């Protein structure tokens, strides 16, 4: 993409300005360095780092991953280096780059979320916080924060009150009505919504009769879940005025377009990075080609243009 390209992929995402709508999703791109020079980070719309907690976490015992039809299950167990090592070792490598850095965060309690937000607020080189509310709430007996709208409200409020950074709330799909937690997050002052996180799933080895994951249940991601993600994004778009980041199963420019057309202002790409590390670059240039073919000049001309009449 030449800089003087007549095509504009730039989008506004609430308080954020992105040069294009294609980001990498949390947990699938490490802390940004792992893919080396295969993916020049400056080319991306944004980088969401692996979820960070106050203290380092070991994560779950292996096996932590299993391939399924069109997808994969993971139960990493939120292994991460912890706040301090992130700020001292990982952030300095990202800071000099011309790419928005979004820090994904999670806690065991509402207070953890607030403390994390406060601690990250002061650091240069962070462009937004993304709250992961899919993780189990230790005080509520392990039920995910994200499945209870009251908890969603509390967690988002705790983060909101501790940071001036743009706040993204990442919704879990494991709910009856996705617009309910979306509304709760909106009421608590989130700037942006992102969805979906993984769908709870399971697999068994028929030979040994053991679960494929040591943790028994894991999160399903990848192309298999795309129809679910797209449906939920569309539901949230209709119910909320907030800008939405769509993700779940995106692996081609057509997939990304589907999310933009239903109204997402940006997308994240997760599992597909494993399949094709350069998939984000291909999607970005694919978006330009699409606009050219459609005789358009600006990606905003297609966002939210789903045609419902026949």
């Amino acid at each position: 993409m030449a800089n003087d390209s007549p095509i504009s992929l730039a989008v506004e995402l609430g308080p954020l300005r992105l040069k294009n709508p294609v980001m990498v999703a949390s947990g699938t791109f490490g802390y940004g360095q792992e893919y080396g020079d295969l993916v020049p980070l400056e080319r991306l719309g944004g980088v969401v780092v692996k979820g960070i907690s106050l203290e380092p976490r070991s994560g779950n015992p292996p096996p932590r991953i299993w391939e399924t039809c069109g997808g994969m299950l993971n139960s990493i167990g939120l292994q991460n280096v912890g706040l301090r090592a992130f700020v001292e070792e990982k952030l300095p490598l990202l800071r000099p780059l011309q790419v928005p850095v979004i820090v994904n965060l999670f806690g065991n309690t509402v207070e953890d979320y607030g403390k994390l937000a406060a601690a990250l607020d002061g650091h240069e080189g962070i462009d937004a916080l993304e709250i992961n509310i899919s993780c189990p709430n230790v005080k509520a007996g392990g039920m995910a924060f994200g499945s209870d709208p009251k908890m969603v409200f509390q967690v988002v409020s705790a983060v909101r009150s501790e940071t001036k950074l743009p706040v993204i709330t990442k919704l879990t799909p494991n709910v009856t009505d996705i617009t309910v937690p979306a509304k709760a997050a909106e009421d608590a002052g989130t700037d942006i919504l992102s969805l979906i996180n993984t769908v709870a799933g399971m697999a068994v080895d028929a030979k040994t009769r053991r679960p494929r994951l040591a943790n028994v249940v894991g999160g399903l991601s990848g192309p298999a879940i795309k129809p679910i993600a797209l449906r939920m994004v569309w539901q949230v778009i209709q119910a909320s005025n907030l800008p939405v980041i769509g993700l779940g199963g995106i692996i081609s420019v057509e997939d990304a377009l589907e999310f933009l057309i239903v109204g997402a202002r940006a997308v994240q790409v997760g599992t597909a990075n494993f399949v094709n590390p350069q998939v984000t670059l291909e999607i970005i240039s694919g978006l330009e080609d699409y606009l050219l073919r459609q005789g358009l000049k600006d990606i905003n001309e297609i966002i939210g243009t789903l045609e419902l009449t026949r």
Partner: protein
Amino acid sequence: MLLRNAKIIFNKPVSAELYHMGLLCPDIAAKIQPGQFLMVRIQDRLDPLLRRPFAVHRLYPNDPPGSFEMLYKVVGRGTQLLANMQRGDFLNLLGPLGRGFRLPQDKGFVLMVAGGIGIAPLPYLAETLAASGNKGPFVLWFGGKTSTDLVCVQHFNDLGFAVQLVTEDGSEGKKGLVTGHLEQWLTQQDELPKVMYSCGPYLMQRSVAEMAARLGIPSQLSMEALMGCGVGACLSCSLRCHPPKGVQDPHYANVCQDGPVFDGEEIFWD
């Protein structure tokens, strides 16, 4: 780390389950070290979805230049698809990945231990070793379920290795498990190896590491894990290790990045 399409130059069975595949990919051939691996995308479609990890079995600097060979065992969907591929087809490779074998600092006696398809990364290591000016002695202990598992023995002989074969069914070499016979044999040697390299099933690796520890020999073990990314981005490929100072316990290393080759004493065997 490179992302390249490699052309298949041959793909032929060596037994009912084992195949040799020759790949032409000069960029990767120029960089890859013994024990490092590649994440292979077996085809364009989304079933199977994830890449599969494979070692480089042999490097062919000249035949044609920039080519190398994989040895793979058909165990599931991905490897079955590999077996169906044809000369002239392309595979998409990500690599070289991970931390490979390190050559011993002192020249002299080197021992390798392989179990089954664990033989895969060792010929390239042996070639590198032989080319390093080390004069040996070199010994390979190679165990399998049955005689057809014991492939490429001649190549090791050609490189100056003494090869000891063991099969569980006794169809070739000694009968039993490789680690049992090895331990007995080691205690009868005048000299101990400078290093033990090993690749094979978890329990074999564990025996080798414990044997090496008992004898005070450094061991380097190429380990396996289910992998998502192969580059350290997803934290799927955990192997429990002893935590370095100041790191929480349990400590999980990434096989793809911290390994696949680990020192025996790093690993927490459970």
